[in-house]
């Protein structure tokens, strides 16, 4: 059952739209077809706010805020495409490309990667910073899936989906700063994890080629974050398979 929501006026880059109280700036933009680049956000999961790609400017105080974690307010003027924001988004993407080992040409997700798409969307044609070229070991111990930390951007979608939707909490982040990386259970091989249910939700939501099905070759991996989105939204709304069993 949908509750009636009170509408407010908001604007994105000077164009007026209708926003609903309680929705985030990002949700409002998406609903209205306004493009706000984002990476770690996924509808249906809790808000993380770590990638900082979706940062927008709120006109009233010129403060920069993540669109995913900012609530819409009446007469809010949101700026997305300012020269400063464009430059910042590009810089953030360059930082992401520089810190991992993102070799698109040999990636399972080549052509179907949200990070790659984001570079196109934000106009990033090269990385001005030094590549950090970290040495990261691939975890191929799971019989069904492969985790390649070289392609991980620490968006934590997998952590959140596993914890919040599947309820297993196999994934988490270990260590800090540039050493921060995903761990399964208490930093042991994924294949040895007893809590993993093999559900594959983490793989479905991965924006890059970091989590993939075993045996996929270059460009063969297709993720399906929308599936999780449908699942989560349906669950929130109580849209069960068999109506009448609502709580």
């Amino acid at each position: 059952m949908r509750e009636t929501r009170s509408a407010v006026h908001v604007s994105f880059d000077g164009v007026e739209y209708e926003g609903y109280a309680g929705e985030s700036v990002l949700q409002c933009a998406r609903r209205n077809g306004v493009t706000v680049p984002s990476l770690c956000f996924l509808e249906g999961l809790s808000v993380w706010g770590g990638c900082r790609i979706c940062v927008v400017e709120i006109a009233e105080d010129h403060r920069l805020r993540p669109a995913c974690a900012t609530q819409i307010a009446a007469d809010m003027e949101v700026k997305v495409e300012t020269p400063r924001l464009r430059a910042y988004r590009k810089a953030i993407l360059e930082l992401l490309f520089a810190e991992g080992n993102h070799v698109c040409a040999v990636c399972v997700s080549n052509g179907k990667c949200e990070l790659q798409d984001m570079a196109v969307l934000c106009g990033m044609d090269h990385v001005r910073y030094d590549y950090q070229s970290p040495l990261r070991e691939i975890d191929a111990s799971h019989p069904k899936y492969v985790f390649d930390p070289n392609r991980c951007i620490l968006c934590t979608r997998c952590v959140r989906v596993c914890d919040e939707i599947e309820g297993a909490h196999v994934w988490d982040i270990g260590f800090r700063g540039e050493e921060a990386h995903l761990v399964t259970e208490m930093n042991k091989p994924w294949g040895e994890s007893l809590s993993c249910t093999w559900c594959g939700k983490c793989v479905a939501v991965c924006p890059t080629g970091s989590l993939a099905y075993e045996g996929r070759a270059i460009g063969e991996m297709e993720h399906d974050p929308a599936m999780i989105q449908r699942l989560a939204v349906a669950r929130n709304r109580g849209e069960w398979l068999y109506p009448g069993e609502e709580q």
Partner: protein
Amino acid sequence: MKQARIATAWLGGCSGCHMSFLDMDEWLFELAEVADIVYSPIADVKEFPSDVDATLIEGAVTNEDNLELAREIRGKSRLVLSFGDCAVTGNVTAMRNPLGDPLQILQSVYVDAPDRDGQIPDAPGIVPALLPEVLPLHKVIRVDAFIPGCPPPADRIRAALEALLEGVLPPNRGEAIRFG
């Protein structure tokens, strides 16, 4: 009208970008009408000429020869373009970087891995020494524009050249800059 002087060069890469260049097929004839390819791995020219309008460089900078040629090209070209992912990002060529010291990599490839009689290639003046790490082109010389892609599709190269012939830099928005 004076013919434009275009060059292409091949550093540390697989030559796939040049294959893609050849994939422009019949448009190459049109190109030949308005431009001279004054230096290229697919043209038999030994010395890099001076007074070049634009040079497309394929490949990353992996050894001393690459570095020397890149610098020479920069000095003799009005515009330098990173041509393909290896030149732009290091790409596959740079996958040795996380492993560190190139000597150790040579050791494990040429000495430890073969069954017998392995040795590290050592022929000064013939086999150039590897640089400590593989670098994208813009880390060693100034680069004016980037044509990503592994390889860049033929029509992307064509669009870039058409832009150059019109006296503007290649498109750097939208699909024209997709990696991979």
